[in-house]
């Protein structure tokens, strides 16, 4: 009789707590079970009456887990420190577009302007800014290095004894400069697109 009453109550409680987290449900049922263990019929009935309706216990649990407030506590700024201001959305947009296309409109200077604006913006992490700054320079240097190697190799093969002969399969200096220019523009464009895609929205 006692076991049945206690078990019935615990099952009703477990059902009432069905929508709670498994941890809370387990803890509450275990806590109540502790109280009902080893009691005789009279004590069990008294304890159940004291515990109250399982639906009320479940409602209490639900109420307790409801968030009171989600706002973080604002910290006052330090005395003399500049007040933080929101960065205008257009700043990151201008930086990305200048990095993408600045070098086409005004060779080199336009790209440098884009890099300068990018470094003033908080829309990207420092590491990302470093990549966008260094990558085009590194690729340009690599292209120049390859051109120099090709030129040396070309001179080594054809420079002696074959006056005036140029291998048509090897690029001329003029062509090498254009290759360098377009590769640089392409890398700048690609990094600009990356900036545009990854800029923080707030």
């Amino acid at each position, binding site marked *: 009789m006692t076991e049945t009453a206690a078990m019935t109550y615990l099952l009703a409680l477990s059902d009432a707590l069905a929508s709670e987290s498994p941890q809370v449900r387990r803890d509450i049922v275990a806590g109540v079970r502790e109280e009902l263990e080893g009691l005789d019929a009279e004590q069990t009935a008294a304890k159940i009456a004291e515990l109250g309706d399982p639906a009320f216990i479940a409602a209490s*649990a639900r109420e307790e887990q409801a968030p*009171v407030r989600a706002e973080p506590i604002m910290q006052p700024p330090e005395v003399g420190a500049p007040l933080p201001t929101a960065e205008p959305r257009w700043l990151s947009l201008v930086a990305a577009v200048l990095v993408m296309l600045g070098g086409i409109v005004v060779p080199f200077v336009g790209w440098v302007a884009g890099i300068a604006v990018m470094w003033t913006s908080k829309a990207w992490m420092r590491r990302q800014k470093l990549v966008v700054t260094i990558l085009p320079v590194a690729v340009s240097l690599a292209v120049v290095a390859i051109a120099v190697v090709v030129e040396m190799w070309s001179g080594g093969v054809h420079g002696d004894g074959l006056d005036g002969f140029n291998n048509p399969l090897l690029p001329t200096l003029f062509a090498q400069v254009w290759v360098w220019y377009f590769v640089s523009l392409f890398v700048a464009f690609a990094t600009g697109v990356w900036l545009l895609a990854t800029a923080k929205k707030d």
Partner: protein
Amino acid sequence: MTVDVATQLRKGVVESCILGLLEREPMYGWQLSETLVGQGMIASIGSLYPILSRLKAQQLVSSYEVSSDAGPTRKYYRLTPAGERHLDNFRQQWASFVPAVATLTATTQSAKDASHD
């Protein structure tokens, strides 16, 4: 919109009240529940366990089981060192908080009396 002030106040302090009780002695769930319900700090034992769960997650309390020949095996809760520090900090905050709120919410007459004293 009506704001239930008592509920908001209780929610703000009930965790620290539990820490205060556990500082005196380790207690099991029902013991804590009876005391807190009696003081009007929680509605029922259902309110207690979500709070204990939060306190455990923050490592402010820990639990252990005690078996007994005379009664059921019970899970006891006790304060951790981090819980003691948290409680000390609460006491300091509370000591200045209560008079500040009392001053700010005093009736006009009692505020005048206080300023004449």
